[in-house]
């Protein structure tokens, strides 16, 4: 996968001081301009500007705005923990938290084992493996807006809906899909799994191909069958990737927005109201001007929770992980 390390010749002794040794540039302050110091700064400028203005500064700004009342008319005023308290006492807050956890949980149940099984099977394909990869990855390249709106058509609750028609062939349905409180969230997760599984499959496939074949040979010599080899060799060998994709998936699903926004707009009756949707509503839901303080407070709470969660996850799985 990654580039092969080039064999390195030991550096030649510099000829009359013409060649500067890489990777260490000359560091005398007087030679700053001649010694690439100025050049390095000039080359870094685009990065420093873009990250400074559109990444580092807004990150710091979040932490400040969460403790302020901000609008575009007056100067921001200090609010202490009022924004956090307002979020905490919002009756929609526990609903959003519960729904987000439900979404993440369902996404893990659907979206975690299926790509793994598919990737293990695909790694054994001997002819035209590329075709399998392309088919699996195809949903990933479809713009999510198109995917969601297309599936919204599929989820049509009438008996003439696409899914209901197909299910009718095998004698099931019609199901209400997005229109029922009970079915709405699983419908969102089903779409989400379809849209994202391909990328996970490709990541697993890359890891599976990296497993040392000698380990399988050794297991075969010990008389292990196919399933035992998967269980005792494959899974332990790719556990690093498995652990990382799991935490990344949880972090991703905790911020789910597009699906609940476009499929159901949080409905029916708040059944798909997620934390991210609540943040959006605080900040942009009101045409008169948003409550940016509450929105940033809630985003900070979510980010803080995810940081703690990741830390605990990392601690718990550290002994079990590769590295």
């Amino acid at each position: 996968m990654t580039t092969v390390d080039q064999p390195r010749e030991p550096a030649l002794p510099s000829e009359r001081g013409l060649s500067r040794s890489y990777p260490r540039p000359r560091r005398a302050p007087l030679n700053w301009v001649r010694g690439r110091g100025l050049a390095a700064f000039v080359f870094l400028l685009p990065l420093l500007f873009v990250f400074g203005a559109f990444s580092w500064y807004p990150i710091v700004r979040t932490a400040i705005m969460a403790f302020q009342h901000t609008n575009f008319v007056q100067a921001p005023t200090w609010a202490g923990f009022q924004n956090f308290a307002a979020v905490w006492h919002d009756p929609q807050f526990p609903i959003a938290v519960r729904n987000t956890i439900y979404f993440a949980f369902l996404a893990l149940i659907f979206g975690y084992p299926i790509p793994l099984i598919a990737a293990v099977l695909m790694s054994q394909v001997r002819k035209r493996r590329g075709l399998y990869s392309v088919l699996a990855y195809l949903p990933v390249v479809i713009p999510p807006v198109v995917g969601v709106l297309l599936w919204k058509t599929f989820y049509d609750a009438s008996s003439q809906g696409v899914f209901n028609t197909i299910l009718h062939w095998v004698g099931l349905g019609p199901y209400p899909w997005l229109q029922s409180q009970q079915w709405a969230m699983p419908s969102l997760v089903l779409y989400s799994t379809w849209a994202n599984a391909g990328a996970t499959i490709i990541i697993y496939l890359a890891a599976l191909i990296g497993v040392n074949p000698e380990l399988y040979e050794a297991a075969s010599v010990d008389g292990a069958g196919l399933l035992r080899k998967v269980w005792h060799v494959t899974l332990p060998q790719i556990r690093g990737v498995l652990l990382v994709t799991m935490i990344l998936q949880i972090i991703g699903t905790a911020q789910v927005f597009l699906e609940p926004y476009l499929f159901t707009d949080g409905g029916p009756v708040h059944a798909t109201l997620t934390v991210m949707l609540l943040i959006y509503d605080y900040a942009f839901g009101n045409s008169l001007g948003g409550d940016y303080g509450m929105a940033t407070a809630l985003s900070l709470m979510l980010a803080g929770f995810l940081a703690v969660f990741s830390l605990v996850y990392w601690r718990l799985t550290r002994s079990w992980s590769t590295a």
Partner: protein
Amino acid sequence: MSKPASGTGLISELEWQKPSTRWGMRTLHALLLAGLVVIGLGPLLWLAKAAITPTIDTISNPMAFFPHGAAWSNLSQAWNGVHVSRYFWNTIVIAFGSWAVQIVVATTGGFALSVLRPRYAPIVKGLLLATLFIPAIVLLVPLYVEVVRLPIVHKSLIDSYWAVWLPYGASAFNVILVTRFFDNLPREIFEAAEIDGAGPFQLFWRIVLPMSKPILAVVSIFAVLVSWKDFLWPYLVLPNPNVQPLSVRLPSIESQTSLGVFLAAMFIACLVPIAGFLIFQRSFLRGTGLGGAIKG
């Protein structure tokens, strides 16, 4: 690739000789392929069919195959009638600008961090890595407030494409990918070029960039794809419909026109990413694998 592509060794050659294993796996693979065709390709084929089917047929019997002929007019109505042509062009402008900003930031930044290595490079690298651990949601609201009223210059970037192009440039993932690639370029060539009198700029333009085509391809493809796919950010900062990209317009188009025309518009919105994927599939799949490697 000298011998026929074999598996990863999970199934040894000896086991593969056994008919039961061979046929078992072949059956599983056939089922997998069938499943992938239905799940991966099926929705797209349906969309392609529905894009040229009269609305009435799609509503009354969505799974029927052209019961009353095709309606090619859907496509032309979508392109001209609901102005998909304009939004398509806007999407291209946004994708191109985001691509340019991301390439400039990632290559110049990567060059400075990997080749020139100023003393403060580790600090910059640390700050870059830190942004990878900050969930995107933290940025949304302050970034919006910032774009509405830029600090220092006190101008608004709302409805300006710069509001979309510049934040895309702040992708730590790109910079790290490029920096790692530059790290693996042979230093001897740089030294030889310097002996020949090349300055940092010539080194960058004549030596490093031409050697980096594979990684530039990966970054470019993902830059275009990400901006083509994005919804929320352009939706927030480009409220004027005349400058909005296709993905932002689609939910409104749904309410403005018939189902057939709407599905045709969605089909048009898919064409470029799918064509790009099929042409550059190697870079796509390699990039996704690389992404997994970095995250791991």
